[in-house]
């Protein structure tokens, strides 16, 4: 951080870290389940998975409350689940069911749950920043002690809207946290070929405090997020949290990633967020984490949600036409 001294509370209690591990597993196993269902042709459209990046969602959400809001990206499953979107509503939406939280009209790229402040994944790269900006403005204007979070990828940094939003957030001193998930890729090319600047330099141009964390270490993300969110909540204005992470899967499911090095892909398992958090647990003396048992427990919850989603019904085209406008007039 440049001009703010932040005191960090260390997360060293085994129970807290185990809870984070469980949250990581929920996102991981939910997406692995989706990946298998997608391969079987059960999930329509196309999906972008956040496998390998779950520590960012889970760590940041650790610092948020239910009244805090977030705007997400095309890779938004983790943000939605970690913010508290119910798994049944999530899977129902991905399976295009009427019981989905978006009634089968949004799908993967538009999962949203207003009741937990998840203002939507977004199919337009960079658009979520301005939505979060506006949400932060509402929090401030209405005197709520809430924070808005804009999640975005490193590729989004090349969009002009990022500049407008950072300038405005700083100018209006909004309670807005910018979270960049820097996975080094924007679609099929490294972002080093797409960006002539570093995010830290950009943030400092707006005098917005910027901090880099290991985005694969959920404890590090949670500690950093807690510290920055606390300062934002105190009214000190926006901050940028840059989480260095790894995109394990292709840009979308079905992308064979022929453009990536085998060495890079191998190194990823070393930094797997679940492995990293188990090491964290070991470091605070917990050597008997029952990862398999925890995974089975999480899988049972996911299986129940998938089973319920599969029992869902197809959306009704007439009802859909009446939902374009609030008064129900047919479009």
């Amino acid at each position, binding site marked *: 951080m440049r001009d703010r001294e932040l005191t960090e509370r260390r997360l060293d209690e085994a129970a807290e870290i185990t809870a984070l591990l469980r949250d990581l597993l929920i996102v991981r196993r939910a997406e692995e389940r989706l990946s298998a269902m997608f391969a079987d042709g059960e999930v329509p459209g196309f999906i972008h998975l956040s496998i390998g990046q779950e520590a960012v969602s889970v760590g940041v959400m650790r610092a948020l409350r239910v009244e805090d809001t977030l705007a997400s990206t095309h890779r938004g499953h983790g943000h939605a689940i970690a913010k508290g979107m119910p798994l049944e509503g999530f899977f129902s939406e991905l399976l295009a069911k009427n019981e989905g939280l978006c009634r089968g009209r949004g799908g993967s790229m538009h999962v949203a*749950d207003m009741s937990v402040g998840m203002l939507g994944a977004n199919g337009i790269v960079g658009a979520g920043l301005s939505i979060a900006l506006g949400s932060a403005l509402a929090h401030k204007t209405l005197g709520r002690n809430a924070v808005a979070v804009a999640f975005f990828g490193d590729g989004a940094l090349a969009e002009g*809207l990022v500049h407008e939003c950072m300038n405005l957030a700083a100018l209006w001193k909004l309670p807005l946290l910018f979270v960049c998930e820097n996975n080094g890729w924007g679609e099929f090319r490294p972002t080093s070929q797409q960006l002539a600047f570093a995010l830290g330099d950009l943030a400092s141009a707006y005098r917005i405090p910027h901090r880099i964390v290991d985005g694969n270490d959920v404890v590090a993300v949670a500690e950093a997020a807690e510290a920055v969110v606390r300062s934002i909540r105190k009214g000190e204005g926006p901050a940028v949290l840059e989480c260095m992470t790894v995109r394990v899967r292709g840009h979308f499911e079905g992308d064979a990633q022929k453009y990536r090095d085998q060495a890079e892909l191998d190194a990823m398992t070393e930094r797997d967020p679940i492995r990293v958090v188990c090491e964290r647990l070991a470091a605070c003396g917990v050597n008997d984490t029952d990862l398999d048992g925890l995974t089975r427990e999480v899988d049972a919850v996911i299986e129940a949600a998938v089973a319920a989603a599969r029992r869902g019904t197809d959306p009704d085209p007439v009802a859909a036409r009446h939902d374009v*406008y609030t008064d129900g007039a047919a479009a």
Partner: protein
Amino acid sequence: MTEIRYLKAVNTALSDAMDADPSVVLMGEDVGEAGGPFGASRGLLERFGPSRVLDGPISEAALAGAAVGAAMSGLRPVVEIMFMDFTTLVMDAMVNQAAKVRFMFGGQTSVPMVLRTPHGGGLGAGPQHSQCLEAWFAHVPGLKVVCPSDPASAYGLLRAAIADPDPVVFVENKALYAMKGEIADPPAPFAIGRAAIRRSGTDVTIVAYGAAVHTAGTAADRLAERGVSAEVVDLLSLQPWDEATVLASLSRTHRLVIVHEAVEAFGVGAEIAARMAQVGFDELDGPIMRVGAPFMPVPFSKGLEAAYMPSVDAVLQAVDKTLE
């Protein structure tokens, strides 16, 4: 009844809406201290303070996008875009976000925001400060579009737009800002989606909106001198538009001319003509005529611009053609 100017009607509607609902906020370039580039928000910063009247930087895309997020989070933002030509920069916020949020999130939330913006030529403002782009927005499911023609409708539609739960594009006309007109005391809101019959007639229906309503009115005066009785329908709302009122008028007059300042090709008039050809076919005794701007940018020179703007003579020619 009192007489006020169109610009003052906009100003009063903003002020009354902010009085009535503390969640209404204004944002835009120079809307605060300067009172708005055209003066529409004069006095509002002093009355409502900087947390509700937000002077924004020259960042149309972020301001419009922020309005979407703010509307999803409890505010009713009114964003001013200085010239309609600059709405090219807010298209993602309006088309992909504001218009779709309610539908694509399964009705979880609405987006109660208003985008105010002036269109229109005749002022020598040139190709990038004169365009009428309302048909672009009317083409997008999820958006509403209104275009008042006088002070009373400016007040009434702006109050309705701000109270509406869905995103509304409120199109003003720079050439009308100084226009004076009668307004009820207290002034009344107008229902979105309702047209007004400005003048009753029996021989031909002239449908228009915005400043073109006055062109149509002058044409109707001239037609009356020649013994032709024209009915003038002021659309007021373009999306949704009042198909029933237009069809009822056509059923009385059996002839239809549509007039707007926007480029004729692929415009609002094309939609109305197509619908009336379909649902009003049996009523038609002549071809449906459209009068709009030619397919070219708005030119700067006075002479070129005068030739560009849809004229009373062009309306008369169209009426003659359908009466043939």
